[in-house]
């Protein structure tokens, strides 16, 4: 495989990583919650796509809005009725709380869906495009485009809509936002819902081109974390750049070290960035656009 091919593969995968990371970054940046359940939510989204495709033959791409809506509701309810209770608690408490949710979701999925590896591959997934000397599956290009569209949509949502502005205002100054009539409780719930919906969309995208299983979450959680650190927290561009960078490094590292050691590279990158440049490659201090 040529380096150019590896680069393209890495960039296409990196777009998906960016979607995983922006949702995680949004929740972290706005509420200071490390959402350990992010990987589990992604897995739920992947299974929504899989079951719709498998049971009713719905086109996997058409299931993305369904999984986003479903995950938005789930995320909204989780934040509204569970996580909001501890927003002011020490950071470890929310960490443990979301960890508990992740364990429950994963356990139930393992019970209902079994540990079998699955995938929602549509019939047309074998078609490829020749660009120069490169072979690129059409589906992966579509996935990357959708991923970029979702990231851009979040950008517009945060910058141009009233709710987006309210979320940013809440992040910048809680007390002033309250005085301006922002209902913090529901804004937090919406923020978490949006983060969960992005995780769901990412899960749906993953299920089309990759294998899924109930325990797929934790590795993606760690990637999301690494990418947020790489790109700088609370910054959509940063997550996109971090995601692309991570995808490329992983794709080359897999060739040089073997796929079994891929996660080591990610972890090494994470520790290195945290030590050398803790604010990230494009770091800004707060949630800014």
């Amino acid at each position, binding site marked *: 495989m040529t380096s150019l091919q590896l680069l393209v593969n890495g960039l296409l995968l990196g777009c998906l990583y960016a979607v995983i990371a922006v949702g995680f970054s949004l929740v972290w940046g706005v509420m200071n919650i490390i959402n350990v359940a992010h990987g589990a939510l992604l897995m739920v989204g992947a299974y929504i796509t899989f079951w719709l495709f498998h049971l009713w033959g719905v086109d996997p791409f058409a299931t993305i809005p369904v999984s986003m809506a479903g995950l938005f509701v789930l995320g909204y309810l989780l934040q509204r009725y569970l996580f909001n*209770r501890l927003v002011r608690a020490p950071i470890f408490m929310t960490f443990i709380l979301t*960890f508990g949710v992740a*364990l*429950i979701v994963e356990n139930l999925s393992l019970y209902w869906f079994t540990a079998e590896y699955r995938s929602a591959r549509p019939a047309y997934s074998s078609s490829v495009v020749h660009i120069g000397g490169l072979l690129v599956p059409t589906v992966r290009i579509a996935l990357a485009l959708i991923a970029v569209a979702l990231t851009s949509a979040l950008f517009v949502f945060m910058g141009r809509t009233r709710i987006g502005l309210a979320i940013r205002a809440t992040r910048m100054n809680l007390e002033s936002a309250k005085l301006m009539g922002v209902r913090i409780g529901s804004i937090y719930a919406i923020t978490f819902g949006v983060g969960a919906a992005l995780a769901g969309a990412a899960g749906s995208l993953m299920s089309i081109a990759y294998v899924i299983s109930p325990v797929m979450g934790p*590795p993606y959680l*760690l990637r999301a974390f690494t990418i947020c650190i790489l790109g700088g927290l609370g910054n959509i561009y940063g997550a996109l750049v971090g995601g692309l960078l991570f995808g490329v490094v992983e794709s080359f590292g897999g060739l040089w070290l073997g796929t079994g050691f891929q996660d080591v590279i990610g972890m090494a990158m994470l520790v290195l960035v945290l030590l050398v440049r803790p604010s990230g490659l494009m770091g800004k201090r707060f949630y800014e656009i």
Partner: protein
Amino acid sequence: MGGRRQRALAVAAAVLCLALALAAPFVVGRYTLRFLTSTLMFAGFAVSWNILGGLTGYFSFGHSVFFGIGAYAVAIGMVKAGLPFWVSLVASGLAAALFAVAIGLPVLRLRGHYFALVTLGIGEVVRGVVSNLTKLTGGGGGLSLPIFPGGVDTIYRAFYFMMLGTLLASLLVVYGLLHSRIGYGLVAIREDEDAAQMIGISTTAHKVLAFALSAMFFGVFGGIYAYWLTYIEPADVFDIKISVLSIIMTLLGGLGTLVGPLLGTICFQLLSEFLWNRLLEFHTAFLGALMIVIVLVFPRGFIDAARGGVRGAFRRTVANVRQFAE
């Protein structure tokens, strides 16, 4: 602990517990003895996790790594290098402690969320690497160890006493720390790391020491566990549940105390024996639910909640929610 009478009571209680623990293996049946042996091991997890998590304030979610390293050190030492068990056991503690120093030097510079997630990540990574080093570790297929010499009852008792001995050692270390300069240093770091550094505590050395001590005990427990089960595989000894259990049991009993983790483990083991061990496929979900209940209702542990009454703890939680909601 104020007053001579209270101290005398505490000593009496400790002596009584120790006597019961020493007599138990000659009285109870095999099933119970097995249960007690694993309870001692879990108690050891909680007590030694508490050195870093409770005393120093650094929540590690990756302590299963040290357990796994200890287990593999004994397995590789005995099977591949042909060393006797006791030598391998020393190696398991050393290997875990050395690994803790190696990763602790960079990672302990991180605080809060960062440290927690990085330790979680290291856990995942090491498990992946061990599964892939097939030549040394047998990969996903695991390693089989020789069986402990002697009759069935001897074996049961031997492992019980090994676990008990290691647990006592870890308790002694925590006791020593709580009454020494180093321990005060650790607590100072927990309360305010910058201030601790300002008054001249070498924070890095303290944190690495706490990390290594805590890891060493996990390594030794892992080593004993490997010889006890005579078969280990990465999915079992690097199970994230080991880290999660340590945290839950410590939180149940109370962070940063000597007997808290011990009591937390006993509560937890009784709960799990009578409640959810009958529904093994939902074990992890129960653990998750327990974590949620702990942080919502008993954020300072059962002991504290019992002091102010469960109602008091609940009222505090509700007050917290009210204060937040508009």
